């Protein structure tokens, strides 16, 4: 008699507790997606005829992780976006945002005190130091293209290099100069490989006259880098209030692999990363996710968010992960017409440049890097048409695990997974939406090229979740300090955080010792080996 009663009591308590916490029982999308991914990956491994991809335990695990990650991202995105349909939305537990508005922006934002200014300056110094020590011939993008990196067999000793104003630079810089010349009125309009990224070149052209081409591109990279660090700091303060998550994550950005790899390379990625984070900040700042807004506020939020998303698309393809994140996180929260309005307006901005460029400037927006996304879709369709074996083999040949580990090495993923459990549900759902929204395009693009630099758009989520984990660990250490003086506990926590961050920064700075392993992995992803 006793046991069933206890069980009933426990269940009642749990129900009451959930009711009080305003989180009624119901499946969670992330867990449901995880279970689906597990089932699909298991089926793909067992139902398709064996081949080399399952010949050893290491290869089998590589395939399993690749399949699971792809399926989780896909199913989570589908369930979230599908939540715009009321029936699908009712299948899952309601999100905290639906019953509780987001914390007001001012409550956890910057206080502009001396300590905050000091930290902002510290972040700037770290960014400048990393940018300065990884520039020129030490640039990771350039260094990883040299024969010693073992990645290319066609490059000369200097790698895929060009010389901009006397400085060695990553070779793509050569193809940006016609656009720079157009903006500085030195050259006519000449179509090139990077017509779609003209926004980035326009930013650099503003600095080209006083600084020259090399430093103009380098300074735009630094600006994107610092904007990303500051943005992640703000997001951490806002979404993980009363913790050091934002501070820890922003230092991870300042010492981040993706930014170090790009450093002074004439590439659009750092500016696009900065635009991506700025977009996330703007969405929160304008309360895009909130359903309880006046009509005028809602339209300001929609137009502001659409503008920022469009800008990200003019710099690089940043509008795709931003829009996916918006749909995945906003699907269960926002009105469908708001989501459609943000997407339509963002695409209108991106398309406007293409229409103006094609009709008035004679740019072709085709060839080279302009066509790669379409090429990836065609490859997927061909693989799917060849059947289950070919589809599974693709996950072996283009290891998604290798792609993700190339973007963020194991310690960051392990910390991020811990951070998922250490984070409140509101923050966790937001971070998972970013993960799914950013990894989906990188995975979709992988049959064409496996580009960890595309997957690196996930850095706000990965670093903030990792930051939450580091903060939790530091607090566990701090509570073990027996001193009654709180200062000692705080100091112990700070030392623990600093130690972890220093170890992580040591890994991302390994190239300074001549070891280009992480740059090579960031350049073209890991192979099947763990």
């Amino acid at each position, binding site marked *: 008699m006793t046991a069933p009663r206890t069980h009933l009591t426990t269940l009642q308590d749990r129900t009451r507790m959930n009711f009080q916490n305003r989180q009624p029982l119901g499946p969670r999308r992330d867990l449901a997606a995880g279970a689906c991914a597990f089932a699909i990956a298991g089926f793909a491994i067992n139902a398709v005829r064996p081949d080399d991809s399952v010949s050893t335990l290491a290869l089998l695990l590589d395939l399993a992780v690749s399949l699971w990650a792809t399926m989780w991202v896909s199913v989570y995105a589908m369930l979230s976006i599908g939540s715009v349909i009321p029936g699908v939305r009712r299948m899952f537990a309601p999100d905290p945002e639906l019953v509780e508005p987001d914390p007001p922006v001012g409550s956890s934002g910057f206080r502009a005190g001396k300590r905050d200014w000091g930290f902002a300056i510290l972040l700037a110094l770290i960014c400048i130091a990393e940018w300065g020590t990884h520039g020129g*011939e030490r640039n990771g993008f350039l260094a990883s293209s*040299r*024969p*010693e990196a*073992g990645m290319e*067999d*066609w490059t*000369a*000793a*200097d790698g895929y*290099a*060009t*010389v*901009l*104003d006397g400085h*060695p630079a990553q*070779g793509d*810089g*050569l193809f940006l*100069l016609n656009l*720079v*010349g*157009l*903006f*500085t*009125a*030195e*050259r*006519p*309009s000449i179509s090139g490989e990077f017509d779609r990224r*003209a*926004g980035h070149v*326009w*930013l650099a*052209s*503003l*600095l*080209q*006259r*006083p*600084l*020259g*081409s090399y430093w103009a591109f380098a300074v735009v990279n630094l600006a994107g880098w610092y904007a990303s660090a500051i943005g992640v700091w703000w997001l951490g303060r806002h979404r993980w209030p009363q913790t050091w998550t934002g501070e820890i994550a922003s230092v991870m950005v300042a010492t981040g692999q993706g930014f170090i790899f790009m450093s002074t390379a004439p590439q659009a990625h750092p500016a696009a990363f900065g635009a991506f984070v*700025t977009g996330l900040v*703007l969405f929160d*700042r*304008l309360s895009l996710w909130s359903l309880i807004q006046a009509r005028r506020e809602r339209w300001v939020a929609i137009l*502001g968010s659409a*503008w*920022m998303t*469009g*800008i990200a698309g*003019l710099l690089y393809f940043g509008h795709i992960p931003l829009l996916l994140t918006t749909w995945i996180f906003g699907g269960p929260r926002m009105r469908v017409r708001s989501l459609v309005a943000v997407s339509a307006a963002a695409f209108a*901005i991106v398309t*406007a*440049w293409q229409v*103006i*460029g094609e009709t*008035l*400037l004679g740019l072709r927006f085709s060839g080279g890097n302009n066509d790669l996304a379409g090429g990836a879709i065609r490859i997927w369709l061909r693989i799917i048409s060849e059947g289950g074996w070919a589809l599974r083999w693709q996950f072996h040949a283009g290891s998604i695990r290798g792609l993700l580990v190339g973007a963020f090495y194991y310690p960051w993923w392990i910390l991020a997974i811990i951070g998922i459990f250490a984070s409140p549900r509101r923050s966790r759902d937001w971070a998972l939406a970013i993960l799914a929204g950013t990894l989906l395009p990188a995975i979709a693009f992988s049959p064409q090229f496996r580009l960890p630099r595309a997957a690196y758009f996930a850095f706000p989520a990965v670093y903030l979740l990792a930051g939450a984990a580091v903060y939790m660990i530091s607090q566990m250490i701090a509570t073990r300090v027996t001193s009654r003086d709180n200062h000692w506990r705080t100091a112990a926590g700070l030392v623990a955080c600093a130690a972890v961050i220093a170890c992580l920064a040591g890994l991302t700075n390994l190239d300074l010792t001549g070891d280009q392993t992480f740059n090579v992995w960031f350049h073209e992803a890991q192979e099947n080996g763990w």
Partner: protein
Amino acid sequence: MIPRHIGRMSAGIAALTLVVAIIGAPWETAVARGFFVVSIGFGLIAGSGLIGARTQFATAFVIFTLAVAQRLPGQPVSNPPSPNWTRTITDTRQVAEHRFSLSEPAWKTALSRSASTSLLVCAEAILDQLDAMTVKITTTNGTFARVVGAEDAYGAHPRPDRGGFYRIPIERDLFDRVDGATVTVSASQTRTPPFRLCGTHSIRPGVDPNASGFFDGTEWIAPPGPTSHTRWLIELRLADKDGRTILAWY
């Protein structure tokens, strides 16, 4: 009152930025600049208003200053020297030469770790026995000469319209305790059809800008590249026991 006043000033500066960007510019430049001033520039100014009116004013002022700077005379957009130029070798009297300095610690250290050495020469041609080239490497330890053919093609193979490497394995003993080596490349036979030898620019600090030379049949001249810092694409490669390149040297 002050923020509203500043807000109006920011809007005025934004409008002025657009005028500065497009007025008097060639129409293609004006269209391109105008689009991005409106989309990105105005957007940044509007967005910074969320932080505060003063920040918005500062943003507008910075963008205006940059738009003005873009119009001032300054550094030109100059094309970098071509990393891919070629010289046609038409007869056997012509010789391309590159002198390697092998006294640097980086070379010495890598050589001590290496298991094999090879010489890479880039050419635009499919070489067979009739149109082969001769490569000769000389150090104080001796001389090694070899006729290079199609079987030596390496990596992205050379084609008549695209440069590629020919790889010639060389005994490691040739480099023991030497401070330099000289490589010459020439056509092998009198009936050799012309082939094009690749050249590029010299980036690595400390490399002698005159390390490469060309004997045109009558006199020694600099390689015919676009700048003074040019070199033949002739490189030494050191590899470990697994065949991984540990140093590419010129």
